[in-house]
């Protein structure tokens, strides 16, 4: 049994939970404190507002616990807001440099709200290296502008305005996607995370 935690501070926690519950051999767990974080084999940072989730991580003193587990090799998946929280460098298309608290564990440069506002949100399919074609909902989504060091962009889409842009990246045990596979119900990204966790067990 693989215990997959979902950081349950804010956002579409339920969608991740319901998707993971249908995968055989997986026990989804909602993680809201350090104690439950210590018991999971992998962690998902869901979609939601990255500023809110970041603020609550800070208020509850969870930052160091999460970073410690990531550094010790626990596989982690960030979707949309989760990607923003993992990134070392974050900008907003409209506002520029942001002042939100981040985990800063992945060597990627993320641009928030890159496609515009909610009316510009869309659905698209993405080809991701070693995962395959994934259906994703891009909701006020960020993009991955750059990856360096051990981080690597593994998924791109062709956007009519922005051209070819990075939407998925990996760095060791960390996987970041800027879209929501949990909203379209596509479980391939989650299966990849579970395989990473199994590889360590």
């Amino acid at each position, binding site marked *: 049994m693989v215990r997959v935690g979902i950081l*349950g*501070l*804010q*956002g*579409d*926690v*339920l*969608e991740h939970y*319901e*998707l993971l519950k249908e995968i055989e051999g997986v026990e989804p767990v909602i993680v*809201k404190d350090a104690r439950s974080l210590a018991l999971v084999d992998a962690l998902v940072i869901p*979609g*939601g*507002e990255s*500023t*809110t989730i970041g*603020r*609550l991580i800070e*208020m509850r003193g969870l930052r160091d616990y999460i970073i410690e587990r990531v550094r010790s090799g626990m596989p982690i998946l960030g979707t*949309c*807001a989760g990607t923003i929280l993992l990134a070392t460098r974050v900008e*907003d298309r*409209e*506002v520029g440099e*942001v*002042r*939100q608290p981040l985990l800063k564990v992945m060597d990627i440069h993320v641009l*928030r*709200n890159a496609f*515009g*506002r*909610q*009316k*510009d*949100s*869309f*659905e*698209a*399919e993405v080809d991701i290296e070693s995962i395959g074609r994934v259906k994703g*909902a*891009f*909701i*006020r989504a960020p993009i991955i502008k750059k990856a360096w060091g051990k981080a690597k962009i593994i998924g791109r*889409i*062709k*956007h*009519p305005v922005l051209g070819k842009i990075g939407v998925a990246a990996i760095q060791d045990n960390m996987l970041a996607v800027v879209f*929501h596979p*949990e*909203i*379209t*119900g596509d479980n391939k990204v989650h299966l990849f995370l579970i395989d990473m966790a199994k590889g360590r067990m």
Partner: protein
Amino acid sequence: MKLVDSYIFLEKLRDFMYSLLEQRDRLREEGKEVLPLRTATPLVRYGFISMFKGGVIMDVTNEEQANIAEDAGAVGVMVLDKLPYDVRRAGGVARTADLNTIKNIMSTITIPVSAKCRIGHYYEARLLEEIGVDLIDESEVLTPVDEKAHINKWVFSVPFVNGARSLPEALRRIGEGASMIRTKGEAGTGNVAEAVKHMKLVNRDIALLRSYIESGDEEALRIYARQNSVPYELVLLTARLGRLPVVNFAAGGIATPADAALMMWLGADGVFVGSGIFKSQDPENRAKAIVLATAFWDDPETVAEAQAMVSERHAMIGIDITKLKPEELLQVRGE
């Protein structure tokens, strides 16, 4: 049944109503490639709303307040010309907020920006969509222009939230294309009593529908639909899902961290705070405390910590609802 299944069902319902599938198939037959990116689909509307869950959306009137809200950890702001409490006191006609104020706030903060339009005011809604507002609240706090009919929200690319006092009212709004529901409560009073009443009424009806479906009484579902002027498909969907088929927030009178936790405990997916924050004397702390209490509503220890961050002496005074004249009630606008 999963919540995302209901989104897919609602998307199909919309496709059916507008024969969009037919059009798409026609394009395919003519050999034209269907765009690989499908923009502003119903799924990304419901999905966007799903991201608000467990969060607080705060009413603001200017950039300064919007910054306070963002720093406190709000999942979004709602821009108004006047806070509901001041709308009550000012009287006259309450309309959508100044578009320039909304635009300035959109370029100041990174979180989603919502705004209110009057019930039935199709064109105010179009303008809000045009300038790029992320969510439109067709709200009883503003003066309605059409008491009989709400806006047809299916034709917009921006999601809508509507207030409701009961399950039939909520399902009628969803049938008109609302992507999100909130309780009406009694806005601008600082009194959460009406929001509690509305949330419990919705919960009670859902439990009733659930009991019908568990006992296989399909006839009772049809009678419920007919008696309450609600589409049968939505009654069936709600019964099968055991909850509202879209995200449901609490609103109307929330003034303290304990109020927010109470509404979450009653089953709300998140809360709107109107006058409660910026009509208090400790808005920064109160905003942070309500965010904390909403996220950790299931942990009384943390809610107590949040409640201790604010002082009752600084809370908004509030209005006794029983002292309001019938014509002063906002919740009766637009059934």
